[in-house]
């Protein structure tokens, strides 16, 4: 049996029935990585010894029974912008040097307590800035469905690892689409929770007002389980919200009768790959056939989202990345004086996209430009949020494509940052509005590349989007497809 090919919930069930051990499961995953990762390059760091040790401990707990948590003994991959105590964390940047974190992110702490097994740290665009994982300072990750294609980004490593069965599930982060867009590109399920639903403590900050941690999984049930494991209030994160975490799988009734699904007309425009348009419309028809009511809605400020995002996110990033100064940890270039130390360390440590965003963010916060850019963007952001508030008066969830294209060729957009930024055109508004949204597979294009369907929910209503996604998944075969590796 190919244990690595199991979903999280299947493995959890079989582990509890002692059909195999966590050590066997973990071994199988590492075997799969050995076989495939020289093609995919999903991982930056592997922690085989520590993982097998965790698996061994998990097996002891599994033997004791006592209703073990679903994550116990399950091999998980972690995007390399989560701080993992004693495991090197790079954020795919040279600026961090050989940084070994002295503490665990809150989400990592939770998974450790549940007994999850950490396989390794996955590749990403440097500081999570990008849509293709090509901005990694180390190497690009390839799409398991076609290794000449990007896996999407920034959580490209996590998406590729899940799609290639190099883990059972993975954690990603999403600031403008970084979970959903790679999930769409790699044919997996990815969910960005409501801002405040999951702790950001221990996540290397990119844009603090939008960053969220979320699950990247093989199916919707796994997504619910992993979300439940990491969600919840954290007193170490002032922006996390103190409200109970539902038992998400309870929403899996399969019944979406009468549920009102909004279709924003601004999201179906020219420029979208026709196969995506078709696949998403098919999906909408299927949902309607299952009893959902389809409502056309309008999100009139959608056209401003990318501009607003690249002002707000870069402003926050320019400040968040100031701490990488070569003083206390990470890369320090030898230099004659303080100013030169700062300049050379940062010049050598950051890649071009990160520099571009620091410069942009510094500019929009500068005296004389703050009002014209940053303040105006904040006002536009409120309008974008209000669009959604208004739309949710007439619907319970919103259905859109996740990305305008399927996975593009490696190198295709690296010379044109603006084209790259447009990859997030359908995902970015959700981050600006702080809403939960999920992407799940809804078909393939002519070349066999996966297409993603996005379902956007009301604040803290992850349950509804999971319910819609589950109902859709139950009546479609897409999630069962595997890339031929």
């Amino acid at each position, binding site marked *: 049996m190919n244990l690595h090919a199991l979903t999280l919930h299947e493995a959890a069930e079989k582990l509890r029935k002692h059909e195999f051990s966590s050590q066997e499961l973990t071994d199988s995953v590492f075997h799969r990585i050995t076989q495939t990762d020289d093609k995919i390059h999903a991982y930056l760091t592997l922690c085989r010894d520590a993982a097998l040790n965790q698996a061994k401990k998990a097996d002891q707990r599994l033997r004791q029974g006592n209703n073990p948590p679903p994550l116990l003994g399950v091999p998980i991959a972690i995007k390399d912008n989560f701080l993992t105590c004693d495991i090197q964390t790079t954020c795919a940047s040279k600026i961090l040097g050989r940084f070994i974190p002295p503490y665990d992110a809150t989400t990592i702490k939770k998974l450790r307590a549940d007994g999850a097994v950490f396989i390794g740290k996955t590749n990403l665009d440097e500081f999570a800035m990008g849509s293709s994982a090509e901005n990694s300072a180390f190497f690009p990750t390839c799409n398991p469905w076609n290794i000449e294609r990007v896996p999407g980004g920034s959580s490209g490593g996590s998406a590729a690892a899940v799609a290639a069965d190099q883990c059972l599930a993975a954690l990603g982060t999403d600031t403008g689409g970084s979970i959903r867009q790679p999930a769409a590109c790699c044919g997996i399920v990815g969910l960005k929770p409501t801002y405040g639903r999951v702790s950001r403590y221990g996540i290397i900050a990119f844009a603090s007002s939008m960053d969220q941690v979320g699950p990247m999984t093989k199916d919707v049930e796994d997504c619910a389980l992993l979300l439940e494991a990491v969600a919840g209030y954290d007193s*170490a994160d002032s*922006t996390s919200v103190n409200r109970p975490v539902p038992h998400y799988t309870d929403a899996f009734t399969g019944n979406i009768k009468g549920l009102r699904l909004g279709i924003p007309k601004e999201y179906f425009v020219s420029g979208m790959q026709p196969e995506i348009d078709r696949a998403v419309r098919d999906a909408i028809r299927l949902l309607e056939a299952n009893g959902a009511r389809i409502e056309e809605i309008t999100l009139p400020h959608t056209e401003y989202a990318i501009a607003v995002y690249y002002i707000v996110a870069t402003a926050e990033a320019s400040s968040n990345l100031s701490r990488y100064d070569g003083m206390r940890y990470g890369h320090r270039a030898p230099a004659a004086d*303080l100013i030169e130390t700062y300049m050379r360390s940062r010049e050598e440590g950051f890649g071009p996209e990160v520099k571009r965003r620091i410069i942009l963010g510094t500019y929009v916060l500068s005296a004389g430009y703050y009002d014209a850019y940053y303040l105006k963007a904040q006002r536009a952001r409120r309008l974008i949020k209000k669009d959604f508030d208004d739309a949710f008066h007439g619907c319970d969830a919103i259905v859109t494509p996740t990305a305008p294209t399927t996975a593009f060729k490696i190198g295709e957009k690296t010379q044109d940052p603006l084209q790259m930024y447009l990859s997030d055109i359908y995902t970015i508004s959700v981050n600006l509005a702080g809403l939960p949204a999920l992407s799940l597979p809804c078909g393939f294009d002519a070349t066999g590349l996966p297409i993603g369907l996005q379902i956007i929910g009301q604040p803290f209503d992850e349950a509804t989007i999971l319910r819609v996604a589950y109902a859709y998944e139950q009546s479609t075969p897409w999630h069962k497809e595997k890339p031929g590796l």
Partner: protein
Amino acid sequence: MKYEPVIGLEVHAQLLTRAKIFCGCSTKFGSEPNSNTCPVCAGFPGVLPVLNKKVVEFAIRAGLATNCEIAPFSRLARKNYFYPDLPKGYQISQYELPVCANGYIDVIVNGSSKQIHLTRIHMEEDAGKNIHDQRSDSSLVDLNRAGVPLLEIVSEPDIRSAEEAGHYLRSLRAILQYLAICDGNMEEGSFRCDANISVRPEGSQTLGTKVEIKNLNSFKAVEKALEYEIKRQSETLSDGGTLIQETRLWDENREVTRSMRSKESAHDYRYFPDPDLLPLVIDKTWIEEIRASLPELPQARKNRFESQYALPAYDAELLTSRKDVADYFESAVKIYPNPKSISNWIIGDLFRVLKERKLDEQLYIMSWPLQSTQMAELVRLIDEGTISGKIAKTVFDAMLDSSRPPREIVAEKGLEQVSDAASIEAAVEEILAANPKQVSQYKSGNEKVFSFLVGQVMKATKGKVNPQKANEILRQKLSQPI
């Protein structure tokens, strides 16, 4: 032409919370370098700040005590700049919406009261300290202070002299000490001051070119630097020169200010609201709770001391400028109600001892060298005539650092004042017999020798005789024919 200075002060007051402003690390002063640090205050990747509620409470206390409006909604903001002692590359401070605004304090200048207005009070985190190692030609960073909470208290440009600035600072410090939120130690840097100063022709209403002065480490430094700057600016203008907007450093040794940076090279701090911290919403009930818990403040207490104890303004001001001293005074007066004498002893003798022992640098003196009950008893012994004022000084010294009642010390050392006529007469007769020359000088009209003879009597009796009685008896004896 005569020039008038226009001065505004910016005070940074370190708050006496046990924990730092955004993490649980200790704020203890003088610990091993970098021992009071954690990933949060050391600016590690991934960390997030959590605002210490006590800091907000202290800010509200300061705001209420200085007649400020407390903002129901305020924000923390990032001030971005690079420096090795600033681990995150930004300082979390407040910018557009400070927690307190539009206050004032009353300051007594030349006997009359003047209102100095406060623009704002805001919360922020302190930076660490760079230590320049001469031997290795390198710099070390100590982050113990990084994240220690500060209040920045900004005055309006209402101050018109160096002396007024000194009074303002002392009054402000007293308020913070009364509130028990800052120890006010300028030398250790827990109460720091930057000054903004410009001058303008007397009678003019427009403001001149402003200069900011930094590195003011004592009240004296503030006053001296301002005096220097008033003179420099007035002279420059008188000579037809122009001033530039700049930051100048006070050079303590040479007693001059010198240019540090011009306005053109000033930082652009790129302030923006900190997305890691929610807007601060302060509800009215909390403000009222804090208001109800405020102690009597220095100004009110000074007024009460003048009316209740009939003390001169000078005494009342000195006694109330420190809360612990005022408490000490009141507890002594409760035991023996002679306020003026007790005040004299505190201001004259106790202050000298406190200064010698550097106890006056503490916010609260935990162990007074002399208990207030003993101080009261000492004054009672003088008033009763048991000891003379002079002997009392000896008793005072003997009482320091002992809990023994003064009466016991007096008895043990035999220091009681001799007041009975027979003993004094005997002593006087002895002196007169031993100094016939001075006696005859006195009798031939030399008044001056009288005090010599009194001195001799006191000396012979070791100061124990009641001086008034000794005088009387001496005059009486000298007026008798031999």
